[in-house]
C-alpha cells in the first residue's frame, strides 16, 4: 500500500488527479463498490498500484461532488449491503477528456525524455 504522499506537494496533486482518472476508468465498465474498485485497480495495474483507502474514498467523494459519479446502496452477490458507485453522463465525458489530457501529457513527457 502506498503511504499518502506529502500533502500539497506537486506529486500529491498529480497522484490525486491520476487516481480520479483511474477510478473513472474502472467505473466505466460497470457500477462498483469501493472495495471492488480498489481490487480492480490493483488487478488492472497488475498489482503495481495499491490504492490506499485513505486516498480512494476521498477521491470518490470528490468525484461525487463534481457530479461525475453517483452512489446508492445495493446488495452484493454475497447478499451484503454496499455502496455502489456509478458513472454519470458527465463522468463519462470527463473520462474521455481526462484520458485525452493524460495521453497528451505522457506523450509530451515521453518526447522530452527521448530527445534529451
Amino acid at each position, binding site marked *: *500500500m502506498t503511504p499518502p504522499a506529502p*500533502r500539497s506537494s506537486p506529486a500529491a496533486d498529480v497522484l490525486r488527479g491520476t487516481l480520479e482518472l483511474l477510478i473513472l476508468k474502472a467505473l466505466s465498465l460497470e457500477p462498483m*463498490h*469501493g472495495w471492488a474498485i480498489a481490487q480492480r485497480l490493483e488487478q488492472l495495474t497488475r498489482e503495481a498500484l495499491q490504492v490506499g*483507502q485513505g486516498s480512494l*474514498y*476521498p477521491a470518490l*467523494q470528490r468525484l461525487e*461532488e463534481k457530479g461525475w459519479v453517483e452512489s446508492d446502496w445495493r446488495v452484493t452477490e454475497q447478499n451484503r449491503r454496499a455502496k455502489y458507485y456509478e458513472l454519470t453522463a458527465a463522468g463519462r465525458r470527463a473520462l474521455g477528456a481526462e484520458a485525452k489530457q493524460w495521453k497528451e501529457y505522457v506523450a509530451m513527457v515521453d518526447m522530452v525524455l527521448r530527445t534529451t
Partner: protein
Amino acid sequence: MGLMSRWRKRLGALTNRAAVERELDEEIAFHMEMATERFIREGVPPDEARRRAAVEFGGATRFREEVREARFFAWLPQAGRDLRYALRGMRHRPGFVVAILLTLSLGIGASVAMFATANALFLRPLPFANADRLQVLYETNPEFGWVVADAAPANVLDWRERVAAFEDIAAYSRFGGALTYVQDGEPQLLEIAEVTGNFFDVLGVRPEIGRGFRWAETWSDGGNTVILSHATWETHFGADRSVIGRTVRLGSGLYEVVGVMPRGFSFPIEGTAVWKTFGWDPASRAQTSFRRAHYVRPIAKLAAGVSAEQANAQLQVEVAKLKEEYPQTNRVMGAEMMGLRPFLLRELRKPVLVLMGAVAVLLLLACANVANLAILRALGREQEIAVRSALGAGRGRLTAMLSVEHGLLAVIGGALGAATGWAALRILGLTGYGVPAATQVAMDSRVMLFVLGVTAFCAVLFGASPVLLALRQARAADVRSSERGAAGGRRSARLVTGLVALEVALAVMLVAGAGLMARTAMGLREVDVGFRSDHVLALRVTTPVARYQDGAAVVAFQDRFIEALEATAGIERAGIVGSLPLSGTSWSSQFKAEGWPADKYGSEIVHRRADEGYFEALGTPLRRGRMMEPRDRADAPFAVVVNETFARKFFAEEDPIGKRIAYDREPTPASTWYEIVGVVGDQHQVSPGQAPVPEVFESRRQDWGRTVWVVMRTSVEPMSVVASVRARLREIDATIPMAKVRTLDEVRRESMAREDSVLGLFTAFGGLALLLAAVGVYAVAAQSARQRTREIGIRLALGATASDIARLVLGRGVVSVAVGLAIGLGATLAAARALESLLYGVKATDAGTIGAVALLLLAVGVVACWIPARWATRLDPVRSLKVE
C-alpha cells in the same frame, strides 16, 4: 443523478449529519470486512486478518477528515465547532480582541453615523407626501446680483394663477418672528412661521390632530387661525386634544387653534412653535409694495405628469409678461426654480461629502490596522497552525477556522460599530428630524444594508491577509522549523510594512484635513468682525400692540428699559438694534442720494435700526460725523449712520456726511429723505468669513420697531446679570417676555458652526488616525525586534553598540513611516482641493500646515519605533540567545 437530486442530497447531508456519518462508517466497515475476508482466503487466521485489515486501513482520523473536507457544505456543521473554538481563543487573548473590536467599532461607527446622515440628506424621501413634485421658486435680479432671492407676494400669486404646469404654489416667510403667549400669568414668546393657507396641502403633510389651513385663510378676511407644533402643544397646552377649536391670544390677536402638527415637524424654520397664515389684506394685492417687497419663499407642486423643464418654460413666459405689465417693479426680475431637496441641501452638500470622504479614509485605516494586528497575531500562532496541519487539518479546515474567527470579530465589531454610530448621532441630537428639519435621520433598511456591507468589507480586508499567511505557514510546516521564522517571516514582514505605510499615508490625509480646518477656524477667530463680542449680553423683546399702540409709546418703553438697565450693577452700557451682527441680513433696498444724476443710484444696501448705545456697547467706533443721538426723534429730521463699506462704495469721491438719501431708485415727492450724519466701523453682518456689505442704520427712535434686540456691555460675566435684567423688565412691564437670551460670544461661535463642526469631526478623525498609525508603527517595530531577538543577542555578544542595535530595529519601522509619508503627502495634495471651498484664510495646499503634519507624523512614527528599539538595546545577550 440530476442537479436537483444532487442538491437534495447535499442539503440532506447537511441536515442529517449523523446519518451521513453512519453511512461512511458502514462503508468503512464493509471495506474492512472485505479486506479481512481476503486475508482469511489467503490463509491468515481470522484474528490476525482483522488486525492486518485495520493496520492497512491506517490513520482513520485523518481519513475521515479528508472525506469530510471533500464533501461540499461540510463546513457548516464544522462552523459551530470553529465558533466555539474562536470564542475560547478570544477569552485567552483579551488584549488582542479588545484592540480589534475597539478599532472596528470606532471605524465602522464613524462611517455608519456619517452614512445615516448622508442617507437622510441625499437618499431618504423627504417627509412630505409630494416631495418628488415640489420645486422651490426664487427670484433673480442680475442687476443687484440676486441669485436665490425671496419673491414678492404679488408675483407669486400671479404665477399661481397663470402657470398651468403648477398644480398649486404655496409660500412661506423665512424670517419668522415671535408672538407673546401668556400662560398662567407668565408671558412666553412663541416662534412663528408665516405661510399661505395651502402650505401643508402643497407639501402633502397633514396635522396629527385637527385640520390644516385653508386657502381663504391666507387673507385677513379669511379668519385668524393657527396650527401648533407638537412640542408647543405639549408644553403650553398640556397635550390637550380639546385645544382644537379653542381661541387663544397671541400677541395682540385672537386666533383659533385648528391643528397640531406631528412630533418633530418643524418646516420651514427650525424650532417653529406656531404656524399662522400671512393674513394679507385683500386690498394689498393691487399695491406696488406687494410687488416690490421680496420676502416670501414659494414652493410649487408640479401638476401630474409635468416635468420641471416644462414647468420652467411656462414660468419664463409668465415672468416675461409680468416684466411688461409691471415695468416699475419687474423690469429686471427673473425667476428660476430648483427641486426642494437640492434647495435644502445647497449649503450642506459640500461639507457632508467631504466628511464622507474623510470617514471612508478612517474606515480604511481602521481595516489596515486590524489586518496588521491580525497578522502579527497569526505570526504568534505559527506553532499552533503547524501542529494543526501536521495533525491532519486540511487547508480548507485551516481557512475555515481562521475565517470563522475573523468573521466573528468582524460581526461583533460591526454590531458595536452600528451601536456606536447610532449613539453618536443621538448624543449629537441628530436623530429623528435632522438638519435641515425637512430630513429624517433613521436606522432604515439602507443604513442596515450599509452596516452589513461595511462589516463584510472589513472582514474581507482584515481577514484575508492573515488567512493567506496562515496557509503559507501550514505549507511551510513540513519544512525544517529553523527556516520558518526567516522565510515566512520575511514575506509577512513585507505585508506588515506595506500595511503600516498605508496607515501612515491615510493618517497624513486626515491629520492634514484637521490641520487645514484648524487653520480656518483660527483664521475666522482672528477676523476683526467690527465689534467686541466679549462681555456682551443680548436678548429679544417684543412690545405688544395692546399696551403700546403707537411708535411714541414703544420708543418710550425702550428708553425706560435702557435707562433702567444702565442703572443696574454690572451693566455698563445698553442699547437697541433691529438684528444682531453675524446672524444674516434681512431686507435690502436701492437708494439715491440728493444731487446724483438721473441714472446713478445705489443698490443692495442692507438696513438695521439702532441707537448710539448699541454701537458703544459693542465697541464699534465712530469714524466720521456724529452718532445718532436721543434728539433724533420722530419730530426731528431723519438721521442715519452708514458703515465704512457704504461710504467707500458710494461716496469714494465726496464726503457722505450731510448728504440726504431716499430708498428709491427714482425718488418721488412722497419719498422719505434721510440725512447721513455719521460713518461707523464695519460690522460683519453674515459671518466672519463673509465681507461686510454696505449698511444703513436708522435711528430706532424714528424708524421704530416692536421686536428688537437689547444689547448690553457688562463688567461681569454677561449671563450673571440675566436675573437683574428680568427684574428690571418686570418692574416696567410684567407682560413682556424676554426671549433668546444669549451672549455675543455665543452668536460669534454660532456663526462659525459649520466650520467648527467640520473641524471637530476632522480633529476626531485625525486624532484617531494618528493613534491607529502609531499603534501600527509600534507593532511592526516591536515585532521586528522580537523576531530578531536571537540575532540581536549575537550582535550584542559580538560587541555591537546600543546605537547599532537601535538602528537595526528602527530601520523597518522608519522605512514604512517614510514610504507612508511620501504617499500620504501626494494623496493629500491631490485630495485637498475637495476641501478648498470649506477653508478660510488658508490654501488647501498650504505648505506650512502640510509640512507640520508631516513632521508630526514623523515624530509619532519615530517615537513608536524608538520604544521597541530601546527595549532591544537593553537585551541581555545571554538570555536572548536562549529564546526559541
